[in-house]
C-alpha cells in the first residue's frame, strides 16, 4: 500500500465517520418525534447514504458500497418518510465497524483527529507541542528567579531593566501561546451528544421505558482528553437515568406524568469550569433503599447527606444486577475518574420529581504522567519525564561527605535529598525506604522516600500565589480519593541544597 493510498484511506475513514455520526443523529432526532422522517431529513439521509456509497466505490471497497446501497434502497422505498429506524441504525453500526477495521493498527493515532474550523489537527502533533509549552512555563519561572537574584546582586543597572522588560514581554507572549495551544485542544460538547442519543434509544428499548433526550449548550468547549472522560461519565449517568431514574410508561401515567420520560443534558461554562447537568423527570432517588444498602454494606448513613452513599463502591439500590446497571461499582468509578481530572460530581434528587447529576470539569487540563511517592505522611507526584530510576535504598550505597549524604549512581556521586526532611519534619527511613533518581538539565538528586505508590496520570493545577514560590514545587493535583497533593518541580529539586538531619 503506497503512502498516497494510505492518506486517501485516512481521509475516507474520517469522512465516513462524520457522515455516519450525522446520519445517526438525524435518525434518532426523527425517532424522538414519532417514527417519521420529515422531507428535509429524508433528503439529508438519502444524500449522505449516496455519498457514502460513491466514496466506498471510489476506494474499491465493494462490501461497503453494497451495504450503503442496501440502506439507500430501504430509504428510497419510502416516499413518506416512514422507515425502520432500528434496522437502519443496526446497518450503520455494521458500516462503522467495517470502516474502523480499515485503519491499519499503526495508523490509529493519525486518524484520531479533530475538526477545528476547517483545519484538521492530529493530536500526535498537538500533544508534544503542549508538553513543550508546559516546559517553557517551568523554565520561565526559573528565569524569573534568576533575574530577581541578579538584580539584587547588581542593583538597578540599565542592562537588568532591559532584561526584565524583555522578560515581561516574553511572559505575555508565552501566556498567549499557552492559551492558544490549550484552545486547539478544545472540542465542542455536541460532538458526543450523538452517542448519548444512541444510549437513550438502546437502553429505553431494552428496559421497556420511553425516553426523550434534550440537549443544550452543545457549543460548550472542553479539552479533548476531558471530552473522552465526559463521554464515559455522561454515558453512565444517562444509562442510570433511563434504568433507575425513569419509571415505566404505566407507572408514569398513573403518577400523572407523560408516558415518555425526559432526560435533559445541559452544559455551560462557569469561570474556568464546565458544568454538565444530567436531569431526569423520574421517580427520584429512593433514600430508604440507599440507607438499607448502606447498612447491609456496613457504611454509615448521614441523613444530612443522604445521597453520599451512592458514590461508595458496592452500594446499589437495586437488589439484582443486570447487564446495564445495579452492580454498585459504576458511580464510584465515575467519581474517581472525574476526580482524577480535577473535577467533581454531585447529585440532587426530589422524590417523585426526578434526579439531577452535576458534573463539574475544568475546561482545559494539563495532564502529566507522574510517579507517586510518600514521605512523612504526605504523598507527592514526581513528573515521570525526570525520573531515571527508582529502587530500594541500600545503606551501603550511601556515603557521607561533609555532613551531606551522597549516593553512588552510574559512576557518579549524587546528592541525597531526603523528601521527608526537605518537605516534612521526619527523615525517611534508610533501612526500609526507597530512592528515586531525578535528573534535570544534567543535574541529578537522589530522593529518599518512605514508599513508592506507583505511576499515575495526574491533572496539574496551578497553586495560588498566596502560597509564595516554594522551591521544588510545581503545582498541585487531586487524587482519586479526593486528597489534594503537591506536584514536585524537577527543576527546583535538582537545585535544592539538601537539608540533613545533622544540620
Amino acid at each position, binding site marked *: 500500500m503506497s503512502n498516497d493510498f494510505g492518506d486517501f484511506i485516512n481521509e475516507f475513514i474520517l469522512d465516513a465517520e462524520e457522515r455516519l455520526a450525522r446520519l445517526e443523529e438525524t435518525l434518532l432526532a426523527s425517532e424522538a418525534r414519532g417514527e417519521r422522517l420529515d422531507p428535509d431529513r429524508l433528503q439529508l439521509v438519502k444524500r449522505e447514504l449516496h455519498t457514502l456509497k460513491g466514496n466506498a466505490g471510489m476506494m474499491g471497497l465493494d462490501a461497503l458500497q453494497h451495504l450503503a446501497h442496501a440502506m439507500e434502497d430501504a430509504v428510497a422505498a419510502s416516499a413518506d418518510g416512514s422507515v425502520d429506524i432500528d434496522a437502519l441504525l443496526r446497518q450503520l453500526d455494521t458500516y462503522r465497524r467495517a470502516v474502523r477495521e480499515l485503519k491499519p493498527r499503526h495508523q490509529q493515532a493519525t486518524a484520531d483527529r479533530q475538526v477545528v474550523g476547517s483545519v484538521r489537527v492530529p493530536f500526535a502533533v498537538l500533544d508534544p507541542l503542549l508538553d513543550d509549552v508546559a516546559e517553557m512555563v517551568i523554565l520561565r519561572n526559573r528565569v524569573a528567579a534568576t533575574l530577581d537574584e541578579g538584580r539584587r546582586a547588581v542593583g538597578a543597572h540599565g542592562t537588568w531593566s532591559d532584561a526584565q522588560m524583555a522578560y515581561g514581554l516574553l511572559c505575555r507572549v508565552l501566556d498567549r501561546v499557552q492559551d492558544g495551544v490549550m484552545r486547539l485542544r478544545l472540542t465542542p460538547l455536541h460532538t458526543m451528544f450523538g452517542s448519548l442519543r444512541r444510549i437513550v434509544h438502546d437502553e429505553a428499548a431494552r428496559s421497556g421505558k420511553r425516553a426523550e433526550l434534550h440537549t443544550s449548550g452543545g457549543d460548550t468547549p472542553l479539552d479533548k482528553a476531558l471530552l473522552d472522560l465526559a463521554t464515559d461519565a455522561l454515558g453512565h449517568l444517562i444509562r442510570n437515568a433511563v434504568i433507575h431514574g425513569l419509571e415505566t410508561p404505566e407507572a408514569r401515567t398513573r403518577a400523572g406524568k407523560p408516558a415518555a420520560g425526559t432526560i435533559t443534558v445541559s452544559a455551560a461554562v462557569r*469561570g474556568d469550569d464546565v458544568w454538565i447537568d444530567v436531569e431526569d423527570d423520574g421517580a427520584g432517588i429512593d433514600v430508604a433503599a440507599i440507607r438499607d444498602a448502606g447498612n447491609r454494606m456496613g457504611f454509615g448513613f448521614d441523613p444530612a447527606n443522604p445521597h453520599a452513599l451512592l458514590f461508595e463502591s458496592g452500594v446499589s439500590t437495586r437488589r439484582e444486577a443486570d447487564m446495564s446497571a445495579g452492580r454498585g461499582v459504576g458511580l464510584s468509578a465515575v467519581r474517581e475518574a472525574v476526580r482524577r481530572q480535577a*473535577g467533581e460530581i454531585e447529585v440532587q434528587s426530589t422524590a417523585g420529581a426526578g434526579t439531577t447529576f452535576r458534573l463539574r470539569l475544568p475546561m482545559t487540563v494539563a495532564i502529566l504522567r507522574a510517579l507517586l511517592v510518600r514521605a512523612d505522611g504526605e504523598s507527592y507526584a514526581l513528573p515521570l519525564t525526570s525520573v531515571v530510576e527508582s529502587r530500594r535504598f541500600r545503606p551501603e550505597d550511601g556515603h557521607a561527605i561533609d555532613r551531606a549524604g551522597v549516593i553512588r549512581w552510574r559512576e557518579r556521586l549524587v546528592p541525597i535529598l531526603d523528601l521527608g526532611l526537605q*518537605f516534612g519534619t521526619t527523615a525517611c527511613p534508610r533501612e526500609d525506604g526507597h530512592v528515586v533518581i531525578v535528573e534535570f538539565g544534567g543535574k541529578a538528586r537522589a530522593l529518599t522516600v518512605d514508599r513508592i505508590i506507583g505511576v499515575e496520570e495526574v491533572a496539574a493545577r496551578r*497553586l495560588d500565589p498566596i*502560597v509564595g514560590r*516554594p522551591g521544588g*514545587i510545581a503545582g498541585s493535583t487531586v487524587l482519586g480519593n479526593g486528597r489534594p497533593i*503537591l506536584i514536585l518541580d524537577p527543576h527546583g529539586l535538582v537545585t*535544592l541544597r539538601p537539608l540533613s538531619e545533622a544540620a
Partner: protein
Amino acid sequence: MSAQWETWVTFTLDAELFAVSVESVTEIVRVKNITRVPHAPRAVRGIINLRGRVVPTVDLRVRIGLAPSELSPRSRVLVCRDGERLIGLLVDAAHHVVRLDRTTVAPPPADVMSGGADYVLGVHLEDNQFVILLEATQLLSVPDELHALSNGHSDGPSDPHHSQQGTVHA
C-alpha cells in the same frame, strides 16, 4: 439614625467571637485534612480539595497573630471569593449567620490596634456578646512579616530544620 441591617457569619478563634460579612463567604466546609505546602508562608495552613478545585487555606489564627489552630471535628473553612480566586479561612468553629445593625458597630479602639491590623472593621456589643467584625478581603493576602518565618507546618512553632529555609536557594 435608622438601623442598617447587615448579615454576618460568626465564628470562633481561641474562644473569641469574630464575624465576616456573609457576602464574602461563598460556603462553609468541614475539613478532615489539609495538605500542607512546605516552605509556604506560616499563615498558609495548606491546600484543600473543594469539588476538584485546589483551594489554599489560611490559618486565620496565625493570620491575626494567635497560635496555630488544631484541627478538630468543629473546625471549619470559610471559603471566600476574590475575583476568580477562592481562598479558605480556617476557623475553630463556625457559629451562626446573624443580622447586625451597622449603626451600632463601634470602630476599633485606635489605641490598642497595631498598624498591621487593617482587617478589623469594628466591634459589636449586644446582650453582653462581644463580636469583632473582620474585613475578609484584607485577610486573603499574607503580609510580609508572616513570610519571614515560613515553614508551612501545621503543628507547633517553626522547627529548626526549616528556620534555615532562607539559605536553601542561595
